[in-house]
């Protein structure tokens, strides 16, 4: 099954974009069934996919907000191993 992920950050022009680039590299390398978009946090409300990916401090904040999607928080956006492990943990659920 193809999953749909939204990469969000507070501004939608910096960290989320870089994180999306890195996630797409990981998705391609490992051929993960994941389609990735990016937006600012304003985009979260209208998002219809099943996964939200963001930086770890933003993830903590979102977790308290009753969001229906699964949330992944990334600590180090250039660490492909971290990204890969967290994505596969979600995909294998």
């Amino acid at each position: 099954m193809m999953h749909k992920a939204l990469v969000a950050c507070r501004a939608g022009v910096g960290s989320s974009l870089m994180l999306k680039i890195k996630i797409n590299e990981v998705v391609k390398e490992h051929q993960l069934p994941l389609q990735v978009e990016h937006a600012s946090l304003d985009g979260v409300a209208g998002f219809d996919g099943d996964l939200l990916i963001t930086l770890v401090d933003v993830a903590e904040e979102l977790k308290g907000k009753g969001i229906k999607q699964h949330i992944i928080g990334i600590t180090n956006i250039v660490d492909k191993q971290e990204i890969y492990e967290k994505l596969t943990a979600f995909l294998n659920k």
Partner: protein
Amino acid sequence: MLSSIIKKELIQLNVSADNWEDAIRKSTHPLVAHGKVTEEYVNKIIEIAQNTGPYIVITKHVALPHAPSEFGVKETAIGITTLKIPVNFGNKENDPVKYLFCLSAKDSTGHLEAMSQLVSLLGKKDFFELLDNSGSPNEIIKYIVNLDQ
């Protein structure tokens, strides 16, 4: 291309900063001075960080100060600032911050190629060695221009 938005005059090396807020303000100076962003943009970055935490610390020792485009971005640009003494931003995993890449983006996709180069740059050890050891913005620019080849 990264080389078209990072310019020599936007690079400052071995800057002294008292704390994270001072570090962010100083990292934005060249962008303000060269008309890339307004003071409003600087204040917005600080405001978001105060309200919501160190969301701009993205990898070990690296911060990417930025805010949404509508708060005073005039031109897309990236400035590079290195600190003489690293400062804590309150990000457990990635503190202390020594390198600040201050970003201003006119929209959310126009700088995609540059951001892609920046991501790969942040994974390069020799680039950080150069930032640590070089006293010359010219050398940094040369390195970045070489990425295009």
